[in-house]
């Protein structure tokens, strides 16, 4: 019987609910980084548009173009054929996503160049900012739809996922804006901190709602994914990185700042780093917990 049991181990997948590995393990780490940097870069660009922060706009563009794009390309099995990713936007969210990334990279670059070399072209710059902003929003959102479209993984099949990802990206954007304000004038630090607080609350509500809705799904696999995140193999990552670093520490800094205390630059930057780690690990947990329904119901 011992032999039979050992042999069975390799067959547990498809019989029990099993987690996806292609998009999180080994080279899948690159895809996780690509997904997160897309959200962060897009979020930062949007927040920087609001604060009219040139450094923020540049960093947002840089993160998407120089980090997100290459991470995704390096993940591909055949990177030289990357252009083929653009050939099926009618139905594929991955294809649409690449359009968004290329569109944002091009429009963002034009906006930055016009703003730097031809600042008197206010109308053109405004138009470019609006267009690039729309693309930035799409870049921050599409990864949620990419996962949302997977039928066999109940944990991802929630309409809240794209919203969660974009909110997470904007929270990171506010955090980075607070950090940029320490080195660059022209950003209303108080407003950036307030935005960060509001987004933090929204993120907490979204994460909690997401987990509750996933656990309430009729497929048992959704509940298993939530349990895996809260009490299973990745629970230390969830509780330490997402909850403590990503929520509690930034919240503590926000409460201290709100209660009249003046947080020093270093503390604010630490808060930003914590928010970024929290957002990054939230995506990790979402990808890692993606569990397929068993091929048979019983």
């Amino acid at each position, binding site marked *: 019987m011992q032999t039979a049991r050992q042999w069975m181990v390799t067959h547990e997948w498809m019989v029990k609910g099993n987690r996806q590995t292609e*998009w999180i393990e080994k080279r899948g780490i690159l895809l996780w980084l690509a997904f997160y940097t897309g959200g962060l870069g897009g979020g930062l660009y949007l927040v920087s548009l609001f604060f009219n922060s040139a450094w923020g706009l540049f960093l947002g563009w840089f993160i998407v173009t120089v980090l997100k794009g290459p991470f995704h390309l390096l*993940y*591909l*099995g055949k990177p030289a*054929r990357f252009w*083929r990713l653009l050939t099926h936007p009618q139905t594929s969210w991955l294809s649409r996503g690449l359009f968004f990334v290329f569109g944002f990279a091009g429009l963002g670059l034009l906006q930055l160049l016009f703003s730097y070399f031809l600042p008197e072209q206010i109308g053109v710059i405004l138009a470019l900012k609006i267009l690039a902003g729309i693309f930035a929003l799409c870049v921050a959102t599409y990864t949620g739809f990419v996962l949302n479209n*997977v*039928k066999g993984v109940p944990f991802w099949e929630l309409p809240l996922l794209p919203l969660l990802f974009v909110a997470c990206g904007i929270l990171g954007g506010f955090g980075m804006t607070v950090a940029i304000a320490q080195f660059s004038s022209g950003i209303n630090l108080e407003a950036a901190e307030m935005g960060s607080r509001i987004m933090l609350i929204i993120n907490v509500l979204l994460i909690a709602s997401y987990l509750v809705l996933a656990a309430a799904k009729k497929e048992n696999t959704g509940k298993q994914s939530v349990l895996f995140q809260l009490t299973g193999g990745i629970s230390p990552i969830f509780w330490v990185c997402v909850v403590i670093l990503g929520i509690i520490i930034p919240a503590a800094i926000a409460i201290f700042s709100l209660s009249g205390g003046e947080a020093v630059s270093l503390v604010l930057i630490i808060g930003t780093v914590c928010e970024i780690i929290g957002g990054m690990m939230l995506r990790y947990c979402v990808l890692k917990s993606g569990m397929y329904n068993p091929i048979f119901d019983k």
Partner: protein
Amino acid sequence: MRWGMVINLSKCTRCHACVAACRIEHFLPLRITWPRLIAWEREGTQGVEVTTVPVRCNQCKEAPCVEVCPAKASIKRPDGIVQVDQNKCVGCRYCVIACPYQNRTFLSKDKDPGYFPGYARTGFEKKGNKLYPHQMGTTEKCNFCMERIDAGLAKGLKPGIDRDATPACVNTCQARALTFGDLEDPESEVSKLIKGENGFQLHPEYGTDPSVYYIDPGLGNAPSNTAPFSAQTGSHMPGLSTQEAKARQIFAAMKEGAK
């Protein structure tokens, strides 16, 4: 025309011949199998037993893999076969993720270490690389032996009836558990089996409309979609049952001897 397969769970004897036939037909790398037998333990009359169900790409009518493929590398042929064009595949693995039946595999280096890792490739492997090349960094799956079907049709043969136009796994199944044919032809054997024996698809709630059906006289169209263990005892093949019983006795004796 829509090619489809019917798998009779009560006839499958878990011999793995379909897996082996596919490996030989397509010169599959060591750690890749297109059809698989999924297996699990359940309480049987003689204690814990293993039960199995053969699975392979379902060639879905509404294939999620075709929908999500950003490179148009996964395409649906007019005859219903979902094909991966390895010359177009970029290796993004979205199809691997999107397939709710998990029947696609990404061919990475670790899945092709050679049949004897650490040694030179065998003649069989070398020949296979030329006859049926597998591209590293792309996705693979069962294609219902479409090369056999196409070549057979060109010769005027009928898939599912003529062996040369029929998938290798169907040809090799000694228990006749696999049946192949045109799902849109009401007179085909597959259509008759599905209609007459309550054929069911895996997870019909996904709306993918698979072209692989399962039948089991014990269950029919039961919502659990699960074959009972008793269906796999080989009782329909008395000779085989005897052989299996003999094998059990021999292994039990060997086990006792080892103690």
